[in-house]
């Protein structure tokens, strides 16, 4: 099987690759969102901690 045939998917290329593309998107976004959220939360907590320290000092 050559590469062209593989991408052609027997004429169903559009349907097959759209499905796999959407799946990839869903799988990636569910990994990226929690990573970003974790960074955001940790940053917020760190800022809050620094602020209270400055205020008490």
């Amino acid at each position, binding site marked *: 099987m050559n590469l062209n045939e593989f991408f052609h998917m027997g004429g169903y290329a559009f*349907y097959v690759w759209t499905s796999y593309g959407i799946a990839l998107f869903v799988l990636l976004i569910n990994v990226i969102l*929690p990573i970003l959220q974790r960074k955001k939360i940790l940053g917020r907590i760190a800022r809050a901690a620094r602020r209270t320290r400055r205020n008490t000092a």
Partner: protein
Amino acid sequence: MFNNFFHKMASPKYFYRISGILIPWLAAGSALLFLAGLYYGLVKAPPDYQQGDSYRIMFIHVPAAWMSMFIYMVMAGAGAIGLIWRIKLAEIMAISSATIGAWFTFLALVTGSIWGKPMWGTWWVWDARLTSELILLFLYLGVIALYNAIDDKRTAARAVAILALVGVVNIPIIHYSVEWWNTLHQGPTVTKFDKPSIHLSMLIPLLQMAVAFKLYYAFVVLMRARCEVLERERNTGWVRELAEKT
């Protein structure tokens, strides 16, 4: 000793540490299985004699549909544990599962619809499985909306647990009624998704993808749960220390 383990696991700090160790392994395992499943599913498996290459959508549609059901059960189970034994961590697992479950349901719906286009000639057919998935998506969205609407997150988690349990009682009934409705209104159409016998060369990648999705869910749900833990424990010493180190 066993009890001790659960007690420890239920402490947020310990959970955060252990899940941090588990996540890379689960991610690696799921990535490997995805690659294997893709290779066997897209390259190795022969085209179907009826559907040609379009059946390859099955390798994501079917595992996504399985996961959408499975995650709802996990969510209801974790919710029940949280309600009965007041284990915070179970509540966190339940609500972290909801969003991922909704995404998988969405994926199953969209791929089902795309698969339907070459098979049925239209983007949407009121097929029993697609209809059930659609209602399942509504159930998930209800859970998420309720959680977001209640300000106090502990109350929200417990309300969501009740809703998930009500949903879990209803899912088999909904499923049954939709199948019944489908046979009633469309006659005994052969569902293209359910193959009576599936060839081994197609079954192997299907199972690989199914396990890959399970591992993926495990590591993503842990990542979400860690965020929830940080959010809820933001006033404790260990979270502050952690935040200032990064």
